[in-house]
């Protein structure tokens, strides 16, 4: 067998190396190959990844915290301490062999990443509901950069078009231009042509949204075999007008079809061509065919229904929607509920042929604005009422200004973790206020992320800022009041026993 081992000891001078040598020698004597990483005072000679990948098991003969333990995740291991590594190396090797024969210990099989592949957000041990969310988030996380690149290019195209055509009509004019004619005869001095070019490149990036979403959901489920049917299914979904909703369905469909085919027991001769020919061919055929002729059309109808519903929403209904989305954004600060609201907004951006004031853009603006509230509110609260917060929280508060301004809701998590009830209540209310106000002001946003840094791309930036400030003030006020009440209670409680102590003394 092949083993990798880590040795370390308090001073990092003697035992680290003695254990390493003892394990190597004992391994050799028993016919095993042991590669040791000594984490001692002469530095760490890291085992290369290939040796780790090839190893059957891991031996920890370490008295210190093992550095980079995650590299060995998912392999059977024994954890014996450095002394036994020195004194009883042969026995330790025997135990390691036994551990490998028993197989992977329960609970440690997770997190063994497919070597070299793109990361997923999938934890193999999670419950079904959690896994569905993780598959979905894998797809969404790979889609977001495309949305950012495409969305911002398109927004810049509209801004430039307004200048080039000399008026607000430019944003409409630029979409009517025959792009092929511009590519064939690009006028280097014509601003309008540059606007068309930005729009063209942005549109191409947007064209990948649904296939990437679908492809990486399937990748999350089935690993590499899922990619091809996932992308093909996503493209088929676009072709029949089923949009991102269809892309979600094809992603899951492709993932499970690819997983199913990749588990077929096939003859040895066929096994070699399974990953390059058989799986992609069959899974793409199945997923593509089903999408085009069976599931695509009803989903397309559903999409049109959703779009016309969003398009037909009146002012009050949009405000209500903003309130709900805001509450979702503020509720768990980057958790599942927050991600549902965010995914709803981002996938909405992928709808083709939206006008500049489409409901989808308003939703994106409301979601981003409300997602910025919690960290900014905590930052404000730590600034105005220092004594209510610990030293660590005040430090976090400084960082939270920047995190909030950049639309990273997670900036408020340290506060919520320390005092969930008060912080989440404040965040919930403040974010709802911001979501509703953003809708009321008709703020629009074409970029999926960016916080104040995409302010130039925001329709009605003043309204955007007012919405955020209002929500931040509300949330900060609530958290300060709630914490004051508790603070006073604690103070009263602390003074009371002291008082009795004095009287009894």
């Amino acid at each position, binding site marked *: 067998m092949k083993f990798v081992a880590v040795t370390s000891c308090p001073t990092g*001078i*003697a035992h680290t*190396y003695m254990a390493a040598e003892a394990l190597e020698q004992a391994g050799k004597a028993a016919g095993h190959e042991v590669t040791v990483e000594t984490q*001692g005072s*002469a*530095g760490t000679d890291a085992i290369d990844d290939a040796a780790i990948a090839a190893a059957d098991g891991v031996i920890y003969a370490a008295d210190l915290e093992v550095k980079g333990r995650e590299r060995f995740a998912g392999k059977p291991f024994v954890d014996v301490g450095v*002394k036994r590594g020195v004194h009883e190396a042969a026995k330790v090797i025997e135990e390691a062999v036994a551990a490998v024969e028993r197989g992977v210990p329960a609970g440690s099989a997770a997190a063994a990443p497919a070597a070299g592949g793109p990361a997923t957000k999938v934890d193999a041990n999670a419950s079904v509901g959690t896994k569905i969310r993780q598959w979905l988030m894998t797809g969404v996380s790979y889609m977001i950069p495309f949305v950012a690149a495409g969305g911002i290019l398109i927004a810049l195209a509209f801004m430039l078009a307004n200048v080039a055509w000399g008026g607000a009509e430019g944003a409409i004019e630029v979409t009517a231009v025959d792009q092929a004619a511009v590519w064939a005869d690009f006028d280097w001095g014509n601003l309008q042509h540059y606007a068309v070019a930005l729009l063209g490149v942005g549109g191409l990036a947007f064209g990948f949204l649904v296939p990437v979403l679908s492809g990486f959901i399937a990748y999350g489920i089935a690993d590499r075999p899922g990619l091809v049917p996932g992308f093909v299914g996503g493209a088929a979904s676009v072709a029949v007008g089923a949009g991102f909703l269809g892309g979600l369905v094809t992603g899951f469909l492709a993932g499970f079809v690819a997983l199913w085919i990749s588990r077929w027991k096939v003859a040895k001769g066929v096994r070699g061509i399974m990953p390059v020919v058989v799986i992609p061919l069959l899974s793409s055929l199945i997923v593509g065919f089903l999408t085009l002729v069976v599931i695509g059309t009803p989903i397309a109808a559903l999409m049109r229904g959703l779009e016309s519903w969003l398009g037909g929403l009146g002012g009050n209904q949009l405000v209500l929607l903003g309130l709900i989305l805001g509450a979702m954004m503020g509720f768990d600060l980057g958790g599942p509920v927050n991600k549902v609201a965010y995914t709803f907004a981002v996938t909405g951006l992928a709808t083709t042929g939206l006008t500049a004031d489409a409901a989808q853009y308003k939703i994106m603006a409301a979601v981003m604005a409300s997602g910025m509230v919690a960290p900014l509110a905590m930052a404000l609260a730590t600034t105005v009422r220092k004594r209510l917060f610990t030293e660590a929280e005040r430090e976090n508060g400084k960082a939270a200004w920047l995190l909030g301004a950049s639309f990273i809701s997670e900036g408020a998590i340290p506060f919520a973790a320390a005092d969930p009830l008060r912080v989440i209540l404040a965040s919930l209310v403040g974010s709802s206020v911001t979501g509703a106000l953003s809708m009321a002001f008709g703020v629009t946003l074409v970029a999926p992320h960016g916080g104040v840094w995409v302010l130039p791309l925001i329709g009605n930036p003043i309204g955007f800022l007012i919405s955020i400030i209002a929500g931040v003030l509300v949330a900060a006020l609530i958290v300060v009041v709630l914490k004051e009440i508790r603070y006073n209670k604690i103070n009263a409680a602390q003074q009371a026993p002291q008082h009795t102590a004095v009287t009894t003394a």
Partner: protein
Amino acid sequence: MSTPLILPELVAVDVDAADANAVIDILAQRLAEAGRVTDAAVFATDVRAREAKTSTGMPGGIGLPHAKSEAVLAPSLAVAKVPAGVDFGAPDGPATLVFLIAAPAAGEGDHLKILAALARKLVHADFKDSLRAAPDGAAVAAIVNEAVSL
């Protein structure tokens, strides 16, 4: 390497000591006299502090006290042969061969690599046997310096 890890005068043969502490004191004194540590008492205290964490007795009659210490000027090894044996807490009995490793508090990589090489050598029975068989300090020093030369 300008300063060898061990010199003949850092080897004490036929040591008669009551316990591990006495051996550590004798070897620390030798290191101080050879100019390898600034203060024998300070260094011995650091060694005992390390010994208090876990004992350093090895199977096969080896004691391996060691410390990283501010008092150490150059990485060094002092060796004591204790025919009667002193207890370093090894499971299989007292140590008759004691290695005291002195490492500077702020070590450079090369020096520490030499100590690492020495620690690896100490696992091998033939290395220990040859040291036991060595008649005097010069022979011990030669064997060690030979073994760890980079």
